[in-house]
């Protein structure tokens, strides 16, 4: 929907180069795909294991970076699939299918961008920041505490907030509170329009959407839904949209997260129907 496909979707076999924790809760996976791959910030890939560990459904993960043949991800262990993934050692095979879905667009000429990333919502916005950041843009990251923050990724001007102001490494700075509140604390909606880009847990997205709406700012959010396929064929990942009056929308109020998303204009989403297990 935003951005659109950047080139072909590829189904490749990757070999783990590194799969190591870069904070107390976040693991960085570097996969060598054997050939260069390009992506747009916000796109994701479906990953799976092979042999007896292979999962019935592949798992979606946003792309953090691509350097030559190596694609990187950042993830947290939350269930069976991510637990198995965390056990893969260098040399292990991980299947890769991507890049998939739409992306966060390049910055508009006329207004600064505010980035709000929470936890594993970092990859799309990290990639955007590295590629597009301008002087007037702002990037906020929210973590659980100082140990949870992947400081090594947040060097270039990121502002960090944490739920609990503990375990901060020496010299590191962080604001205590929610990431949206940090933004709200620093930026007033009366200073003119800003484009808000948000990715993270559903409460963060809702809060970002609400804040943007207050100032009448445009806001794009990247949402997460359970996925069966990742390439638009199962309709398992739909996001409820508000009717636009347009004929097709009226009967099909759902958009696929994997193909039409994962990036949506916040005002198009039916936040009431968007019930996620949070």
């Amino acid at each position, binding site marked *: 929907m935003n951005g659109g*496909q950047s080139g*072909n*979707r*590829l*189904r*490749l*076999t990757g070999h783990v180069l590194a799969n190591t924790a870069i904070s107390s809760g976040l693991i960085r996976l570097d996969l060598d795909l054997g*050939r260069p791959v390009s992506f747009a910030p916000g796109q994701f890939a479906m990953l*799976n294991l092979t042999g007896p560990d*292979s*999962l*019935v*459904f*592949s798992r979606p993960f946003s792309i953090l970076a691509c350097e030559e043949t190596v694609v990187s991800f950042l993830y947290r262990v939350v269930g069976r699939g991510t637990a198995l993934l965390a056990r893969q050692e260098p040399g292990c095979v991980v*299947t890769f*299918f991507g890049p998939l879905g739409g992306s966060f667009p390049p910055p508009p000429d006329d207004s600064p961008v505010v980035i709000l990333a929470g936890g594993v919502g970092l990859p799309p916005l990290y990639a955007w920041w590295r590629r597009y950041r301008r002087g007037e843009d702002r990037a906020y990251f929210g973590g659980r505490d100082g140990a949870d923050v992947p400081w090594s990724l947040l060097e270039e001007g990121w502002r960090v907030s944490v739920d609990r102001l503990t375990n901060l490494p020496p010299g590191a700075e962080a604001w205590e509170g929610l990431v949206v509140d940090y933004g709200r604390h620093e930026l007033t909606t009366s200073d003119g329009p800003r484009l808000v880009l948000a990715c993270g847990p559903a409460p963060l997205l809702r809060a970002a959407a609400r804040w943007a709406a207050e100032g009448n700012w445009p806001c794009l959010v990247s949402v997460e*839904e*359970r*996925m*069966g*396929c990742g*390439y*638009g*064929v*199962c*309709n*398992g*990942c*739909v996001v*409820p949209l508000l009717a636009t009056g347009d004929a*097709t929308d009226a*009967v*099909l*109020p*759902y958009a696929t997260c994997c*193909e039409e998303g994962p990036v949506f204009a916040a005002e198009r989403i039916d936040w009431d*129907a968007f*019930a996620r*297990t949070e």
Partner: protein
Amino acid sequence: MQLPDWWQTDPCQRFTLGPREIPGRIWTASGCFGYGLSGHDISSPEFASPYDGIGAVVTKTVTPQPRAGNPMPRLAELPCGALNSIGLQNVGIDHFVSEVLPELERLGVPTIVSLAATRPDEFGEMTRRLHAVAGRYDHWHGVELNLSCPNVAEGGHDFGRSAETVAACVAAARPHLPDRCLLAKLTPNVGEIAPLAHAAVAAGADAIAAINTVIGLEVDLASGQPLLPRRFGGYSGPAILPIALAKVDEIVCEVGAAVVGIGGIATSEDALKFFALGAVAVQVGTAQLRDPFATAEIARELSR
């Protein structure tokens, strides 16, 4: 894999099904490859496209009117399979005929159109619509009547559990498919599937597609409530393979009908088990979701 001696068929060669030649015997299952349009920008080092070697794409089921489908969550992954409750979300027959079918033809996708409805005459009406434009579509090979979706309130699975209804739906569609094949896709959620298969064949079906998903339920332990909003969903994937094999065997042994085997196929070995029992073709569902090349890979591995 090492192919067994009894397997001497090339599944990527044309074969006759009713009044039609179908390009091959390894198909994608309805609902697991969209309308068949989503594979053209996908590639891999081993395959030019996910369509390589695929005999037919069975489209997502299309209904007389567009359907929004069920609320989220619609999927639950289980240890050996998945539950789905998509609820036949689809664009409706009008949009399908005007927008999707021409595109499938343009791209040369060998197509079987899956149809569902709540009354037999609607099947007649939908097939009549297809028949009216048939001359333009060389890659459209036939219709699969989905008489077995568990995830819709009206019609759906209760609907296809009586032999009379199955016969009426097949009979309504048959006259409009003089040169296209007609499959009846049956539900496994019955005591005996053979009487339904018999009814379908007697009413003019060229083959039976079996099976659709098995009724299943998953509980969210924290809340103690069913995980899917409609409580149950359709169980698919490796866990249902033995159930599907038993149903196919029942149809082959008791009715002698041509059967297209579906259910739990993830590897070429799984597909071979259906062929061993006498299936004329197979469809790959859940495995095709996991990997867009799953069906193509099975077709290649089974080629002689």
